[in-house]
C-alpha cells in the first residue's frame, strides 16, 4: 500500500489481475454509504404525488406504472453497483469505465420517465456525457503514455502525472456527473421515484469525491 | 507492371474528379477499381491476395451499382 497522508490507512486490497481495488479508510466509508443507498434503491417504494385540483378540496394520487418503476429500480441498483466499483477500483482506466457506466445508468434512470421535458433533459445530459468521454479517455491515455502505467498503486506519490491529464480527468468526471443539474432543471418534480432520482445525485457526488482522491494521490 | 496499374488508377481518380455528372463518374470509378485490384495483386503475390483483390473489386462494384441504382430510382434522370 502506498502510505500517503491523504485518505487514511489501507484496510485490504482485492487483486483482479492488473486491476487491484483497495479499501482505505476513505474508500471503505464511501463504499458503506453506497451499500446503504443500494439497499434503499432496492427495497424502497417511490413516493406518490398528490395533485390538488385548485378551487376545490379534491385531490388525486398520480398512479405509478409498475413497469416503469421496475426499470428505474433496476437501473438505480446498477448505478449503485457502478458507483461502488468506481469508488473501490485501483486503476485509472477502470475508473473511467465505471464513470461512463454511472453516466449511462443515470441517462437510463432519467429517461425512464415518459415526460417530454424529462426526456429532453436526458438527451442533453447524454450528449454532455458522451463528449465527456474525450477528456476521460484522453486523460487515461495521456497517463498511460507518460508514466507507462495505469495503476493507482504504482502512480501514488510519484507525481509523474502531468497537470493536463489531471485536469482532463476532472473535466471528464464533471461531464459524466453533471446529471443532477439537468434533472434539477428539468421538471423532474413531475417524474416519480425519489429513491432512484436520489441515486443519480448520489452517484455523481461520489464520483467527484473519488476523483478528488485520485487526483490528489497520483 | 504495378506502375501501370497505379498510374491508371490515379488517372481514373483524376477523371472522376474532373467529370461533372454523377452517373458518368461511375465508369471512371470502374477503371480505378481495375487499377487498384491489379495493384493489390502486384504488391503482395500470394494466393490469399487473390481473395483480397476479388473482395475489393466486388465490394466497390457493389458500391458503384448501389449508387447508380439509387440515382436512377431517385431522380429518374
Amino acid at each position, binding site marked *: 500500500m502506498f502510505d500517503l497522508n491523504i485518505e487514511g490507512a489501507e484496510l485490504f486490497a482485492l487483486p483482479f489481475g492488473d486491476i487491484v481495488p483497495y479499501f482505505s479508510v476513505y474508500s471503505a466509508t464511501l463504499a458503506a454509504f453506497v451499500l446503504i443507498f443500494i439497499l434503499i434503491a432496492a427495497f424502497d417504494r417511490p413516493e406518490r404525488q398528490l395533485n390538488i385540483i385548485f378551487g376545490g378540496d379534491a385531490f388525486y394520487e398520480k398512479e405509478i406504472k409498475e413497469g416503469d418503476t421496475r426499470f428505474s429500480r433496476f437501473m438505480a441498483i446498477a448505478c449503485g453497483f457502478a458507483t461502488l466499483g468506481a469508488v473501490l477500483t485501483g486503476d485509472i482506466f477502470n475508473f473511467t469505465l465505471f464513470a461512463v457506466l454511472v453516466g449511462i445508468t443515470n441517462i437510463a434512470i432519467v429517461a425512464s420517465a415518459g415526460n417530454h421535458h424529462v426526456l429532453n433533459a436526458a438527451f442533453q445530459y447524454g450528449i454532455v456525457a458522451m463528449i465527456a468521454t474525450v477528456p476521460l479517455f484522453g486523460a487515461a491515455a495521456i497517463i498511460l503514455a507518460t508514466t507507462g502505467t495505469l495503476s493507482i498503486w504504482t502512480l501514488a506519490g510519484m507525481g509523474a502525472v502531468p497537470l493536463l491529464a489531471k485536469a482532463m480527468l476532472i473535466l471528464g468526471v464533471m461531464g459524466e456527473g453533471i446529471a443532477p443539474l439537468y434533472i434539477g432543471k428539468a421538471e423532474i418534480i413531475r417524474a416519480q421515484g425519489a429513491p432512484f432520482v436520489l441515486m443519480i445525485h448520489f452517484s455523481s457526488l461520489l464520483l467527484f469525491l473519488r476523483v478528488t482522491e485520485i487526483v490528489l494521490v497520483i | 507492371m504495378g506502375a501501370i496499374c497505379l498510374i491508371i488508377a490515379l488517372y481514373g481518380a483524376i477523371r472522376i474528379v474532373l467529370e461533372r455528372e454523377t452517373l458518368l463518374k461511375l465508369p471512371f470509378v*470502374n477503371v480505378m477499381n481495375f487499377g487498384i485490384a491489379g495493384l493489390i495483386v502486384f504488391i503482395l503475390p500470394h494466393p490469399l491476395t487473390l481473395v483480397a483483390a476479388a473482395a475489393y473489386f466486388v465490394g466497390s462494384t*457493389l458500391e458503384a451499382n448501389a449508387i447508380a441504382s439509387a440515382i436512377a430510382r431517385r431522380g429518374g434522370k
Partner: protein
Amino acid sequence: MLEEFGRIVVATVIAWVLFLSLDIYWRLPRRGGVSGADAIGKAIAERGGDQHGGWMMGNIVCSPDASAGTLLAACGVFVAGIPGGIAAAILVYIGNRICHDKGYAGTSGALIATIVIAGFMQIGFFASDFIAGMVLAILTIQGISHTHASRLIGYFWRWRA
C-alpha cells in the same frame, strides 16, 4: 524492356478482344441489367453516345462481367497458377450473385481467360502481362471517352444482332 512493352501490348489486345466478344456474346448491350446500368446507359446516350453501348458500359460498371473475370483470372494465374484461375471464377460468380446478375459473362470470362492465359504462358507470356493488359483494355473502353467507346460497342452490337 521493349520486349516487355510488346508483351503488354499484345496482352492488351488479346484481353480486349476476349472480354468484348464474351460480353457481346452474352448480350450485355441488349439492355441495362439493373436500374443503375440502365441509367448510366441513358446518361451516356444523352451525351451523344450510343444507347446499346452505354448499356453495356453500365453493366460493366454495375457487376463483375467478362472483363472483371479476365482480370481476376489473370490475378489468380499470377499468384497460384491454373487453380488460381478457377478460384477466381468462383469468386467472380459470388460477386455476380451479390450484384444481382446471372453471372454467365463473368464466370465464363474467368474460365476462358484462364485457359487463354495458360496457353499464352506456354509461349513466353507472363500472367502479370495480362493483368496490366486487362487494366489497359478496360481503360480504352471506360476511361477515355464515353461517347466514342459506346459508339464502338454499339457498332459491334448491331453487327452481332
